[in-house]
């Protein structure tokens, strides 16, 4: 932190620096819940995989699927191409399954859930009550009926509860934990699970396929516009426990859903592992908005502890005219390794990726996206904003690939990095592969302090320096913040705290 205190560069507003500093200095969700837990034995082997499957009361085919993944995983090596450095993860020193004792018999409704768990989520600002919308918004009680958000709350390895299930059912929407879906909707799960991110995809995805314990499942039937926003809140609580959630969202023809994801973890000295897989399937004319505010514990200011976040997220736009939008605000985690991607298979399908990644202290983020254009007239847009401070390293890594058959497609990529302090790093590693000539691909990237031209423009319009900086820095993230649903935008703005509005004028 001393770097930030002493080394405020000209042109970077102190308030901005303070705001970024505040992010890690005061990690708000660092407390833990004292609750009796059931752990699977430490370590990873076939028996653990069997145990997880058994705890989730899974059918035989699911167990086989997991075992197959596990057998692949033991033969794989951890990837080392990303620009993150961390001591080797001791995969056998982790717990792969942790469940609050009170969840042994699954509660039939939210009323039966252990009050301690409900209290945990209340404290996180996620009340598991159906009359309230996602918190973090002031005066939640006065908000009108239409702003409901259904929540699936995942605590360590299990889903604690899912709200508004009945109301969603009326609309035909299935929103439940993935373990429920495996039991209740095996035909859908069998058809789509692993169809976007196969069990053999990569080291972390394969690990997840073997040991995922819970996560969310969403199915939106044809023609349905999901009547409320869906949300999953992930909480890691137990020590030395990895969280491996699996999310599968299927948007059938002409359907629409907006899905939010949030995550936090207590402050601990030891690192914890999080390896999630998210699969989105979009059929003709379907649309999914997937927004993430990732606020896992980032470790302390000396880089001790924190979550290692290795996530595989991919959307498969199978249908024509389907559209997917990834928005992410990455502020937490000691190490982030995450590339939400779009396979634009259907003709005229669209993929968008908006990202703000903030790394402070010793955080390392290697994140970006892949846009694979297969269908004709497919469009993609990438806007990535990276902010590095302290001794952090922030990397944008992306792929834009135009296949020979993806005629008349279009990509626009913009990645900007802002450096605050002289000991941090900002990197850009884009791969651009264009294999037909009717498509246009544009890539731009900049790395800078606050832009002098923009400053000059603002100053020439009569703003004083501080106002100008406030405006410019605010603008730096705005494109991404605007892409978030309202509830998340509020939380994200608080998190980013770089929105300096109010100090202007």
């Amino acid at each position, binding site marked *: 932190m001393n770097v930030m205190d002493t080394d405020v560069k000209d042109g970077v507003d102190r308030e901005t620096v303070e705001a970024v500093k505040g992010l890690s200095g005061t990690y708000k969700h660092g407390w833990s819940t004292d609750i009796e837990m059931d752990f699977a034995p430490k370590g990873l082997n076939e028996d653990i995989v069997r145990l997880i499957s058994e705890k989730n009361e899974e059918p035989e085919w699911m167990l086989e699927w997991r075992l197959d993944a596990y057998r692949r995983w033991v033969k794989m090596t951890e990837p080392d191409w990303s620009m993150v450095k961390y001591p080797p993860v001791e995969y056998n020193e982790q717990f792969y399954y942790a469940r609050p004792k009170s969840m042994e018999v699954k509660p039939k409704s939210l009323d039966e859930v252990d009050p301690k768990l409900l209290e945990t989520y209340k404290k996180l600002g996620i009340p598991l009550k159906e009359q309230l919308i996602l918190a973090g918004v002031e005066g939640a009680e006065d908000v009108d009926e239409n702003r409901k958000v259904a929540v699936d709350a995942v605590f360590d390895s299990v889903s604690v509860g899912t709200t508004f299930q009945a109301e969603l059912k009326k609309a035909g929407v299935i929103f439940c934990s993935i373990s429920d879906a495996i039991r209740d909707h095996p035909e859908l799960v069998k058809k789509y699970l692993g169809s976007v991110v196969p069990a053999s995809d990569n080291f972390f995805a394969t690990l997840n396929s073997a040991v995922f314990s819970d996560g969310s499942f969403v199915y939106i039937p044809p023609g349905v516009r999901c009547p409320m926003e869906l949300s999953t809140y992930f909480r890691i609580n137990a020590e030395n426990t990895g969280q491996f959630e699996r999310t599968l969202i299927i948007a059938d023809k002409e359907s629409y859903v907006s899905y939010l994801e949030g995550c936090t973890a207590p402050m601990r000295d030891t690192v914890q592992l999080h390896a999630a897989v998210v699969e989105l399937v979009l059929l003709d004319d379907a649309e999914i908005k997937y927004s993430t505010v990732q606020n896992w514990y980032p470790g302390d200011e000396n880089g001790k502890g924190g979550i290692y976040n290795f996530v595989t997220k991919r959307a498969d736009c199978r249908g024509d005219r389907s559209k997917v939008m990834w928005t992410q605000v990455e502020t937490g985690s000691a190490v982030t390794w995450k590339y939400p991607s779009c396979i634009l298979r259907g003709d005229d399908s669209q993929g968008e990726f908006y990202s703000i990644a903030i790394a402070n202290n010793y955080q390392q983020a290697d994140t970006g996206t892949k846009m694979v254009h297969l269908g004709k007239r497919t469009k993609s847009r990438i806007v990535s904003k990276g902010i590095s401070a302290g001794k952090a390293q922030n990397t944008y890594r992306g792929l834009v690939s135009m296949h020979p058959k993806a005629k008349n497609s279009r990509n626009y990529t913009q990645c900007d990095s802002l450096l605050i*302090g002289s000991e941090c790093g900002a990197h850009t590693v884009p791969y651009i592969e264009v294999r037909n000539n009717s498509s246009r691909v544009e890539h731009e990237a900049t790395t800078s302090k606050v832009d002098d031209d923009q400053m000059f423009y603002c100053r020439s319009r009569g703003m004083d320096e501080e106002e100008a900086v406030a405006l410019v820095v605010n603008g730096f993230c705005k494109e991404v913040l605007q892409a978030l649903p309202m509830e998340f935008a509020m939380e994200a703005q608080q998190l980013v705290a770089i929105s300096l509005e109010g100090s202007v004028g």
Partner: protein
Amino acid sequence: MALPQAKLDATEARLAGLTLPEGGKWASDARTQALARVRAMGLPSRRDEYWKYTRPDTLTAPETPEAAVFETDESPVFDGIDSVKLYFVDGVFDADASDDPALAGVEIERLSVVSGTDIHWAKDIFGVLEAKGQDPVARPLAALNTAFATDGLVIRATGKAERPVALIYRHADTASDAILHHCIRVESGASLTVLETGPVAARFNGVTEVDIADKGTFNHVRAQGRDHELRTATHMFARLGEESAFKSFTLTMNGVLTRNECVIELTSDNAIAHVAGAAVGDGDFHHDDTVFITHDSLHCESRQVFKKVLRNGATGVFQGKILVKEGAQKTDGYQISQALLLDDDSQFLAKPELEIYADDVACSHGSTTGAIDETALFYLRSRGVPRADAEDLLVLSFLAEAIAEIDSEAIADDLLTRLQAWLARRR
């Protein structure tokens, strides 16, 4: 980490056909160390990330793939430029054909002669810049070159050179396999221009090491290609002193496989490095520009401008990186890579990278790929310009930004004429 067996085998297979040249102790030491580097790194293979977009197998194979000698009555590039002309035939210096290398302010010697001496200033450059350029990315073909190159020039400029030094290459044997290594030293306040032109050999591995002292200026313009079946891998390593300037431009026309690597280290303040290239390819053409610029001092400027025009299934590759080390404040780094695809079969693959560890810098890169702008084409045609002419005009205007990087107007005009002729032949 141990190398994969296949890589070890391929490396040893290539090394088996080569013998280390004899020489003085310093040169022999440099060669032995380079050979050890090759063995430690292994020759490049398809699976290497740095060779993701370019297949290195024909560059590393024990046998030389043949290339027909292309007969032409066209005058060689830079023929009209007043210069000291030095000829190489299949990678061997041809003293009889060459001008007297006694150009004011420039010492020119042959590597084969120099490397036999007990002591020479080239000791501080030969294999030294190449070895330094192996980190953080391995460039085994360059180490192979240091180990086995027998010929090449050792050039030292102590003042402002009056005329450019032109290296003119001739390809005579369809199975020639040339390894050339040049060392260039530009002394404090001196300046030198080196021109390179002509097809070197069926397969060519070239390394040029350039050491520029404080306030020195080095200009390099190269016209590559001509013969269609050539396979070329070149490396240029440059180290820049305070307030020095390095400028290099390469025009590539034809060649089944070309990979030009440029590795520049800005280790002293206020230095400038510009690297640019224009490539035009038709059909069986694979062209790869790989640039790595390291900023390790204050107030330095680097600029990369690369343009490619591709047709009939040609492939263009650009891998460019700007690395700004911690403390390299006030760095100005710019990089642009653009491709014009004239048909649906051609492709452009790019990896423009930034790696930045200093905050007070302005670095940017851009990369675009697309077809000829139909609106511009329509405009020209509506003004009565025939379609073929209009297309050529638009291609030339697309390449103009890269050609503008050449300081000398006469040289730029010469290259532009060649480009026009190349386009005209493809009507």
